[in-house]
Every structure is written in C-alpha cells, then in structure tokens.
C-alpha cells in the first residue's frame, strides 16, 4: 500500500480552461479518501490525473515515494473502477478479471489462483463463466471491483462507482466497499457527488469546488466545523441554513441580526468574531439546532411563520419564514404535533452550534 501526494497540481485544457487550480492533497497509506463536490468541480479530473489518464499541466503527483507525473497508468500501481463498470463485453467475468495479468504474461496457475481469490472475496465465484451482459448492475460492479483487486494495486481509484445502481443496491454496495477497505487495508480514493456516500464511507473527505479544495477533514469535522460557506452548504441534508445577516454589539454582547430579530452569540463565538462587528456576514446553523421546544426559556429565538411541514416519520422538517428570510428546522415528530402550516411560532436557535462566515471571503470566522 502507499500514500498519494498531490502538490500544486494544475490542469489547463488546450482551449485555456483551467479545471484544477493548484491542488495540494495527501492521502495517507491505507486511507479511504473521498473526493466530493458538485458536477464540474474537477473531482473526476483529479482522480484521472492520479490514474495517469489525464496529463497534469503543473505540479507533482507521487504514489508511494515516487513521482509518477511521467509514469504510464499501468506502471503506477493503481487500479480503477469506472462509473459505467467498463467491463469488456466480449469476455467472460473470468477473462475480464484475468486480463491485466494475461497482458503481464503471468503464469496461468497464478492468474487462476488470484482470480478465484478475488471472486471469493466478492462472492462472485458462480459468475466467472458469464458474460457481463448476463449480470445485474450490482454483479457487474462487483466484477469491476474484482478486476481491480486481481491487479493487487497499491492504490484503488473509484470514479462514482455506485451512481448507476438503484438506491437500495447502492446502500448495499456502500457497505460492501467499506468492508472491502477494512479487509484489504488498501489506500482508496473514491469520487462521488453523493454526500451521503462521502460521509458514510470516507476516513477523510476532500470537498472540491470549481477546481479548488474547499476543505479536507473527517466526515464529522466537516459537518460540525465547516471551514467555509460552501462546505457548510454542501455537507448535510437538509442543508445548513445560510442567512445573510449583520453583527451588532450592544451592552458588551455581540448579536447577529437576522430574520427580523437578533440572536446573542455565545461568549466563545463572540470573542472570535468581535473584529467583524458592524460587518455583513453569513449566519449558518444546521436545521437540528433550531427547535420549537423551551420557547419560553431564555434561549435565543425569533418568531417565524410556518410555511410547510414535511413529515419524515421520526422527524419533521419545518420550513418557516422570519423577517422575509427562509429557514428550515429539523424537529422531533412528537414536537411537530402542535405545529400547523400558516401559524406563527417562536423558534429557538442553539447559538453554541452556529457558524459565522465572512460575507466576502465566505470563510468561517467563528472557528
């Protein structure tokens, strides 16, 4: 296994379009790193550059301790699983899995042993004589993973491997891939646009936007301590409330003016943002930190008009408007029984868990 290091990697296409703007990233040995971001954020391009399928314009990519900028894909010690499986349609599952070893002129007995070993891991031993068209989506995906395992690579690269599967199968395969990572202890780089996949599978997640890294951290750190407004809005479903507001100072306290009211910041947060007092800011708070309980307590709250209630069973999403601004709250279904669309209600904000982002740079200034 090996670590992967990207240093100042840039990609400029011949038409002048700059897809990747100097990425610096270190994927540790044996780590499951997820590259996540919206369409066109260059996550696949980055992966393809690591694979050697896309040339880099500047910077260096190292696998292990070796710079691989000019090393052809086959010699990089990588294996890649593609979104559309990319199984060779005219070959059987066995031949698909054995192909890379046959090209390397490996002895037949070793090929057989490795293919069967990989097939056992993925539980596809009974499919070895079939052609890809005779397999279901999930089986094809497992064969694609098997083909990668047989190569015994230092780094596994996955390019949105589950996006062609239906929702149920995707959950199943997600678990299988995580189990596989635990079993193989291999370095894996996994590209997805699905934040649920990213959160559930990754040891660390690299959030990309417009060819730049927005943040690299563990799933929970990304969720709880987003470095900027983009990460805050991208990670989490429903997304974090991101509201335009202003910082005010009154009686030695710092308040956020939003939703037609003002909310007092905790002492810790206030200290961090005090030099921004008087500035416009983005106020961020996750839906679960806005509640309807204890509205008579001294916690910070604002009055809002409920527009829509979405009952999810165990919880309810409450869409409400306050001071012309749209908010969403995630509350326990039991608490939602007393709520009705069109009614006004006091919503309590847990200010310990809010975030303040600079209005222009959109960086989190409350961390």
């Amino acid at each position, binding site marked *: 296994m090996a670590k992967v290091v990207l240093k100042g990697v840039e990609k400029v296409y011949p038409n002048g379009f700059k897809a990747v703007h100097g990425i610096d990233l270190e994927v540790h040995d044996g780590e499951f790193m997820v590259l996540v971001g919206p369409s066109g954020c260059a996550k696949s391009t980055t992966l393809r550059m690591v694979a*050697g*399928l896309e040339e880099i314009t500047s910077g260096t990519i190292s696998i292990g301790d070796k710079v691989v900028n000019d090393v*052809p894909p*086959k010699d990089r010690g990588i294996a890649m699983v593609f979104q559309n499986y*990319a199984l*060779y*349609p005219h070959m059987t599952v066995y031949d698909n899995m054995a*192909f890379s070893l046959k090209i390397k002129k490996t002895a037949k007995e070793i090929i057989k042993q490795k293919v069967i070993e990989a097939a056992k891991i993925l539980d596809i031993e009974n499919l070895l004589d079939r052609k890809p068209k005779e397999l279901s989506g999930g089986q094809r995906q497992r064969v694609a993973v098997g*083909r990668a395992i047989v190569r015994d690579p230092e780094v596994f690269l996955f390019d949105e491997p589950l996006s062609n599967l239906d929702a149920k199968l995707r959950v199943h395969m997600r678990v299988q891939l995580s189990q596989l990572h635990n079993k193989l202890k291999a370095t894996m780089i996994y590209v997805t646009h699905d934040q649920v996949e990213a959160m559930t599978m990754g040891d660390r997640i690299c959030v990309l936007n417009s060819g730049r890294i927005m943040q690299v951290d563990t799933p929970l750190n990304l969720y709880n301590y987003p470095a900027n407004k983009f990460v805050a809005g991208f990670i989490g479903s429903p997304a974090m409330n991101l509201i335009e507001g202003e910082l005010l100072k009154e009686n030695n306290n710092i308040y956020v003016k939003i939703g037609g009211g003002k909310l007092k910041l905790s002492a810790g947060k206030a200290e961090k943002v005090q030099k921004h007092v008087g500035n416009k800011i983005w106020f961020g708070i996750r839906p679960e930190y806005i509640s309807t309980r204890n509205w008579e307590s001294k916690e910070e709250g604002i009055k809002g008009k409920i527009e829509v209630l979405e009952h999810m069973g165990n919880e309810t999403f409450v869409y409400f408007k306050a001071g012309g601004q749209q908010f969403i709250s995630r509350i326990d279904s039991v608490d939602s029984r007393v709520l009705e669309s069109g009614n006004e209600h006091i919503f309590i904000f847990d200010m310990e868990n809010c975030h303040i982002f600079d209005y222009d740079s959109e960086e989190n200034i409350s961390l």
Partner: protein
Amino acid sequence: MKNKRKSKTVLYIISILIAIVFLSPFYIVLTNSFKTQKGIFINVMDLPFGKYFDAFNYIDAFIELNFVKSFFNSLFITVASTSVIIIFASMAAWMLVRTKTKLSTFLFFLFAVAMLIPFQAVMLPLVNIMGKLGLLNPVGLVFMYLGFGSSLSIILYHGFIKNIPNELEEAAIIDGCNKFQVFWYIIFPLLKPITVTVSILNVMWIWNDFLLPQLVINRPEWQTIPLKMFYFFGQFSKKWDLALAGLVIAMIPIIIFYLIAQKHIIKGVTAGSIKS
C-alpha cells in the same frame, strides 16, 4: 378480426410476388445451365428434361474456366483485399473517432468525398501509375481495392466506434495494454457485427468485380472467375449453356459465404441492441 386476416393474406400475396421477381433470374440460370444451347433458345422457361438436358455443361464449364486456378485467384484477391480493408479501415476509423482535431474531421470528410468520385474518372491514370510501379498484378490489385474500399468501410466503422465507451479503452490502458493491444484485444472484437457487414459488402463487390481486374490483370494465369466468364461471350458466338453453368459454379462460394455471414449479422444486431 376479418380485416386483419384479409390484410395478412394481401401481404402474403405481395411477398410471394416479390419473391418470384427476385428468384426468377436464379430459376432461369439454374434450369438453363442444365440445357443444351438449342434447348435454351427453344424455350428459356422450360424445365431441363428430355433431349435438351445436358449435365455435362458443368464439366465443360469447369474445364474451360480453369475453375480451380481462377477460383483460387478470386479467393486470394477477395480474401486479401477484404482483410486489409477491414484491418486498416477499422484502425483508421478508431483513430479518427478518438482524435478530436480539425485535421481528423477534415480527413473523415475527405474519405466521405472520395466516394463521390466515379471509378471511370480515375481508372486510366491509376493503371498508368500502377504500371510504372510494377503493380499490375494480384498484389497491386489488392492495394487498389484497399484504396477504393476504405472510404465506405471507414464511414461504417466510424459510426459504430462512436458508440463504444472510451472507458473500455482507459480500463485496458490501466490493465497494461499499449495502443495496439487496446485495439486488438478490446476494440476489434467489439467491432464484430460491423466487420461482418463490411466484409459482406466488400466480398460481394470484389468477388464479382470485372472492370478493375480486367484493367490490371494481364496474364491468363492470374485471371479471376469474372474475367474467365467473359470468354464464354465471344464477338461472334455466345456459349450460353456453358456460361450459365459457369455462373452457377461461380455463385456457389459467395452464396455459402453469405449464408454463414448472415447468421453473424443477426447475432451482432441483437447483441448491439442489448448493449445500448
């Protein structure tokens, strides 16, 4: 229900009529090939029975055509030409699809435009140049067929290759293939349905071609079946009995080839539909 049955009957009648129109030349050729020359002229539609029956036409035609020799000449030229067309056209089409530059677009249109130039416009300069190069022989003929056959074949391959996902090639590159291995192990096997179509079109054309071999081949021992057939039609006499028997003999290999290849065409079409 009644209307449905009626329209079905009408369809059957039309199909039978069309079949008769298409099969009647075969009937005429086959029946008359077993008749004497006189028998053919008395009634061309009659069945070959009685005193006009003559099965020896086939033996005579076989000998006069020097069939074994001319068959192998035809076979060599057809197989060699079709093979080089398939190999080079598929490779060229693959590169034209995968290389997205202005030059590749220009080259592709150049191939398309080349099909519009009539053969008669180029045949004399071609023979002149090939003569100077010492290529007025079966090998030169193969080379010429490659030139004339490439355009259509490249266009057919081009359309097919566009539908092959690029990821297959990328997977093969990661698996350790070089460009040639990607082509031979991955791309070429996937082209089977269109290769069958391309080979049928080219085999039919080259096997039956008369004009180009007539211009190029100047030795009797190199002559193909269509050239040999020409000798049944002299200036003053036409040996219809032998010519028709010869035609039947000449048709057999190509019909066998078509029947074998047709199966693959149907298979290819079905596999393609599943893939898409």
